[in-house]
């Protein structure tokens, strides 16, 4: 079974720790990694590709040292490998223009404003990952019944069927 990963990109160490702590409920089923800037994030994604790990969800801050979050998301969205990766901005500082840019050109799926609510972050992540799982032919929705949106996954299982 192919593993699915969540990548969190956030430059402030305390904030990064907080996000990782909040994502704890997903640890049983997903690989969770964090980066401090987009250069490191790109290296982590390359490493995922090497190990056959699927990039399921990227939670990205906007203001980062060097390339900013929206630019990074836009850049990877252009490549086939990350087209269906779910992309969420987790930020307090993305302005109007950046956000519009992200929606129109980076395939942004969701916007979470800082400060975030832990339950909201987990629910958003679950919802995005459910969509990711359902969009992939090579992932069995059954493997995520316990942790993601079960009714939606079951609907897909019912439609796919299979012999008894």
């Amino acid at each position, binding site marked *: 079974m192919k593993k699915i990963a969540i990548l969190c990109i956030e430059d402030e160490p305390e904030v990064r720790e907080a996000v990782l702590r909040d994502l704890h409920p997903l640890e049983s089923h997903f690989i969770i990694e964090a980066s401090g800037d987009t250069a490191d994030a790109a290296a982590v994604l390359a490493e995922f590709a090497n190990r056959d790990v699927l990039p399921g969800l990227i939670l990205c801050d906007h203001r980062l040292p060097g390339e900013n979050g929206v630019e990074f998301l836009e850049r990877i969205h252009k490549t086939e490998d990350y087209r269906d990766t779910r992309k969420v901005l987790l930020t307090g500082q993305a302005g109007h223009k950046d956000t519009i840019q992200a929606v129109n050109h980076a395939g942004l799926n969701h916007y979470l404003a800082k400060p975030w609510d832990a339950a909201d972050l987990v629910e958003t992540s679950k919802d995005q990952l459910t969509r990711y799982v359902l969009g992939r032919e090579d992932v069995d929705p059954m493997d995520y019944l316990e942790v993601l949106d079960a009714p939606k996954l079951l609907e897909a299982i019912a439609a796919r069927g299979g*012999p008894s």
Partner: protein
Amino acid sequence: MNTATSLLTRRNIALIIALIGYLVPWFVEIPGLSEAGHRLLSIFLLAVILWMSEAIPLFATSSMVIFLLVLTLSDASEDLMWGVAEGFTDGEAPAYAMYFATLASPVLILFLGGFFLANGAAKFGLDKNLSAIMLKPFGTKPTRVLLGLMLITGFLSMWMSNTATTATLMAVVLPLIRGLAPEDRLRAGLALGVPFAANIGGMGTPVGSPPNAISIAALGDAGSVTFTQWMLFAIPLTAVMLVLTWLVLVFCFRTKTPAIEFSMEQKWNKSTPAWIYYATAVVTIGMWVTESLHGVNSFIIGLLPVTVLLSTGVINTREFRSMEWDVLWLVAGGIALGRGVAVSGFDDWMVGLIDWQNIPPMFIGGMLAAAALFLSTFISNSAAANLLAPMAVAIATSTDSGPVATVAYVALACSMAMAMPISTPPNAIAYASGAIRTPDMAKAGLIIGFIGIAALYLLLPHLVRFAGY
């Protein structure tokens, strides 16, 4: 990991064993078995290993079985290096088209009709609405709700695939389960009630589960079963098994929770396509269950919903393409293997290995049922039926056990295997939900398997006689 070890995967090992299994009868002479029988044995061994290991998808094995039958056991082998085999039952090799024709067997058309009804039910929410209506009278007492849930699941599963039924009902049950305390045993009771009832409900009609179709097709010239006749012996058994399974679950998983309630609302789709679907479903099922009154056989009626729903556009191109064609191919492989067994004389040889005359007919059925239960606990029910149904027919035609009863033992026992997550897709769904532990499933599933075999042994002969055999 180096290349040497990475090539030794479970899949590759199974493929190698399958190849060896296939080649052995080509080089080893088995006394008393004709040349055609040797070739069939080759294909049979290959099918056993591939269907059991699932080294390649089940339907791919089916395709391979049909292809090999055509290449080595039909008139097409005349032009090939190995030539036509000696020793066919009829004296000559069958036409290759006979094996191709299994892909359009009447029973597959019947099954396709079933797919269309199930597909429409899901599309228009009929399954959920029926569940909501039927659950109401059972109140809120947990044991009663469980009974209601299992009866509904069983009923829907007679017409829809066991997998789809389980997934649909689990979507209703899971939120409720997650609301219960982690130590409450009712969680396991509810999470097992749905897949178990779906497995058992599949026995009820010829379209309920592939083993039923495989068994009906395996009968070939040895006998025939109408839709109504099948229901006459299978429904009482299904009902008895549902109630007994409910008792086992109530006994195994006691709860102190005083009341539970599902939040299900009815949302009836009243669009024109929905009405066309409702009417088609009512007419189709109505004609299926009254086959003995009007005489139009159920296979032919199977094409009615297909034609009506396709030509009215109620089932669209995308939905048509996403039908479970793989299941039809899987079943066709089993039917083709059965044809091969019959034409090659393999059946006579195999039956001749044991002196059946000294074994009471009732005991033969019980033995086959036990074998089917054991096999389908570990492999797909359909694959188990594919392998055992031809054997059952062969044994039945040379003993007094009655062909219909004998294949029914196999088909129904296949549906009673539910001791492990891998036993059936419904079990796998329940297990994946995280609401049960493997020991819970093993304990309840084993008890139900034993009760099932006992029920078959005690009731089936009488029920089959009651159905007119």
